[in-house]
């Protein structure tokens, strides 16, 4: 196993996505001036609105032209830009270890997260990382330094992934750890309790976080191309099943389709961006397509 950053950071992919920006769709609370909208009004050239003067307001922002016309005191408010605080939530549970192609879901997810981290750091924003399975395995604080990328990549190299993912405790923990509004990027196969997931997403959204969900699935999981007598052994569950997969394929795809629809609808309901990504898709292409569409959405907002 590679221990350096090259394992999860592919130069070709980085080169292709380096021209893209990762923008928060919602306002975020950064601590530096940046390219993301801030909930605070500050020293910006972008006029936002007028507000009636109250006691304590800085007299520098009183609009004297309005006072001359209406004999009332109004202060001018300006939009403040701030930097992004992006937290990468990487699922490193046992189910993420499955892979039929060049990369397992775990490797694909980590590469995706590393690429995003690179992107965020490149645009001077802060990025942190939380690797989790059934519990939070490691937490990397938010930093804007370029060499912070290595810390994030090392954090994702978790050995001995454990059991079934339970997302609500994780997300609740994240929400408490990062109280200021930021961008939460969840990279997982979401093979977990849906209610727990939706509860966690709801909590994050209620705390004002902008939430992105990258649903990473393997081709085998989506197509179920198996044939011949096969014994399936659960990566997270203790069950095993001996069957002819062709006989169960139809039922499997139906159950999977229902699950994906439920996840997609849940994300929409909680205003979280959702993207289903196949591990066979080139990472740069998948990421570029998503970020481009997100940029479009941002501009519409």
């Amino acid at each position, binding site marked *: 196993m590679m221990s350096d950053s090259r394992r999860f950071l592919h130069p070709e992919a980085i080169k292709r996505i380096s021209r893209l920006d990762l923008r928060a769709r919602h306002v975020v609370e950064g601590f530096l001036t940046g390219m993301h909208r801030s909930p605070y009004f500050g020293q910006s050239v972008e006029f936002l609105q007028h507000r009636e003067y109250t006691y304590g307001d800085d007299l520098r922002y009183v609009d004297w032209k309005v006072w001359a016309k209406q004999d009332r005191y109004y202060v001018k408010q300006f939009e403040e830009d701030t930097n992004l605080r992006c937290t990468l939530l990487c699922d490193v549970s046992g189910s993420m270890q499955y892979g039929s192609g060049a990369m397992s879901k775990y490797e694909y997810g980590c590469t995706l997260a590393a690429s995003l981290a690179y992107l965020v750091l490149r645009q001077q924003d802060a990025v942190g990382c939380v690797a989790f399975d059934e519990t939070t395995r490691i937490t990397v604080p938010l930093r804007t330094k370029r060499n912070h990328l290595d810390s994030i990549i090392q954090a994702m190299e978790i050995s001995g992934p454990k059991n079934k993912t339970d997302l609500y405790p994780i997300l609740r923990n994240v929400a408490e750890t990062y109280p200021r509004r930021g961008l939460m990027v969840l990279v997982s196969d979401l093979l977990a309790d849906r209610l727990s997931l939706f509860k966690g997403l709801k909590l994050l959204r209620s705390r004002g976080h902008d939430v992105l969900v990258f649903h990473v699935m*393997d081709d085998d999981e989506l197509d179920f191309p*198996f044939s011949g007598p096969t*014994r399936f*052994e659960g990566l997270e569950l203790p069950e095993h099943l*001996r069957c002819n997969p062709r*006989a169960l394929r139809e*039922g499997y795809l139906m*159950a999977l389709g229902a*699950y994906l629809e439920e996840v997609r609808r849940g994300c929409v309901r909680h205003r979280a961006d959702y993207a289903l990504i196949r591990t066979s898709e080139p990472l740069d292409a998948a990421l570029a397509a998503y970020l481009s569409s997100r940029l479009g959405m941002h501009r519409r907002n």
Partner: protein
Amino acid sequence: MPPFAHEALLWGLPIVGLPVLIHLINMLRHRRVEWAAMEFLLVSQKRNRTWVLFRQLLLLLLRMLAVATVVLLVARPLLHNRLGSLLGSTQTHHILLLDDSFSMSDRWADTSAFAQAKMVVNRIAAVLAQEQNPQTFTLLRFSRVTQPDRGTRPDLLKETVDTGFTTRMVETLRAMQPSQTGNGPAEAIEAIGQLLGDGRQERRIVYLISDFRARQWDDSTDLRRQLLELNAADAEIHLINCVDRAHPNLAIALLAPTEGIRVAGVPWFMEVAVQNFGTTPVRDVPVLLEEDGHARASVTVAEIPPGRTVRERFPVHFPTAGQHEITARLESDAVGVDNVRYGTIHLPIDVPVLLIDGGPDARDARYLDMVLAPGGSIRTGITPQIETAAYLNGTRPLDRFGAIVLANIERLDIAGIESLRQYVAAGGGLAFFLGEQSRSLFFNGTLYCDGQGLFPLPLGEATVLPVDRLERGPDLQVAEHGVFRVFAGKRNSFLATVIVEQYFAAADGWEPGPDSTTRVIARLRNGAPLVIEHRFGKGRVLSFLTTASPVWNNWARNPSFVVAMQDMVAYLSQRAAGDISHRVGARLQLELEAKEYQPQVRFATPGEDVTPTATVDAVRSPEGVLVASLSETDVSGMYEARLTRTNGTTETRRFALNVEPEEGNLAALSGPQLATRLDGVDYRYEQADAFQYSVTQLGGYDVSRWLLYLLVVLLIGEQLLAYAASYHPPACSRAAEGGVR
């Protein structure tokens, strides 16, 4: 359980368990996959468990049924009950064509080919008697096919099989023996087709029970066509071979007199030919001979190579005139019928020869008379009679003469020419010698008649042959011919001593046509024809274009002339000798003068010395002669026709009937050899001795066709079910299309 055509193949039924075994092996050989999305798999399994299990069991059952059907299809079950009759035709017609040619008398160990054939027929009959379905039975022996005057006479024709059938069949077969005919299977198949029609309304099974001799099947084009026609008519064909292998066999292929005068009191020669049908040479084969029933000294054939025929001559001498019998026998071998050959020969006291000479001193006739009947103690059996041309005036009967010689004649009466034409056309022999009196104008105009007359060529003028001073070769150059046997062989000294000085040349440009019966049998050294042979009607004509006496040549002074002239008379008078034997099965026919004989003719077949078999009333022909014939000639040997003359005296005429010697060729075809000759024919080939184990298949309805339909349905059902159960792995592209995006 119904009987099976191949019951031994039922041992294959345990392979019905093969699909289960394969299933179990596959279960053991399953692939192991660590799977993340177990949740959905378990949901699917829970939802489909019952249906999947049901489909799997159904699929397994279908596969086991398909395997069982294949096994049954190969084993060919036969239904003998009402169901069988409901499925198939209501009646099965078993047609047995039984080869009883004399090659079927082939013996080995304590059995024979015909005994094997009868055993097969008995067993078929025994099985059919137990059938519940209506069965009919036809038995036809080869020897009873299309016989003269009798037509095809099957032993049993559409006989209904009932409880007493077996007994009747045993009785019928008991009296059967191999015939002495050589009929082949083609005639039998042809006859059965004519006899029974196409038979679309019944199911037919044709059994050809034979010894499958190579001789009859080597050119099997017609047989193959006939069998294909039977196939096309939905008839089932069984070829049952009754011999295990070819056995060595000797046969007397020929017993015939050699050329020469055959009269009473004069020794003459006969020839016997022995053919070896075996694969190894045989040595010192004794041929036992009988003359008029009395044994005489036998001849021994030193060696007969395999597949070859060797001839031996032996002298014959009968002191009395009349009809005589000659029999040749071999020692016993595989086939006995062809070990004996019979012959009858009628010997006259002498052969009268009419010599007509046109010369004033009858010099030619006298020379001929001298060489044909030298007199003294030498007896040639020829009695010459010298006459002038006036003798041929049309009033005197010429039939009594064995041959007529016209020497140096100037002319003949029209009536004489006509009587000569009738004589030769009826089989008489005529010889011409030309001479000083001969005129080409008469010969060309009256005797040649543009090729329609007695004389074979148009004559030119009398021509002198220049003397060959260089002596480059003999004057006479002869072809191989019975008349010139004396000149046979290289460096024959007689030939060089014959000098021809004068002859009648043929007309310019004359040569015998390629298709005519005219042949030049002797030429002069200048290539001119000298002796010409041709046929006129049934008779023979020899024309010598020079003199008989030593006027234009010196041949009459040569000893070879004596031999040649006697051979000439023997050659011309062969009508008198006639054939010495007939073939078995051929109709014997007698033509009697109505004035001399009563119409009742009693025929005695071989072995019946006292009581004649049949009395036949002769029929008067349009020509006024009585014709009596006998068709029952299936046995070789001596037949007698006992005649009664109108004056009350009796006369016995004998006929020798012999088997076809080629039928004794016992070279047989094996199953594969037969298969190559019958390419495309659907038939079953079985050995008679092995036939007893599969005899139960012969009756009942063969449900193979229905099993085949069932198999097709099962396989289609299996494929549809397998497809429905998604056991057919789709292509990758289809898998991607079917997945979740």
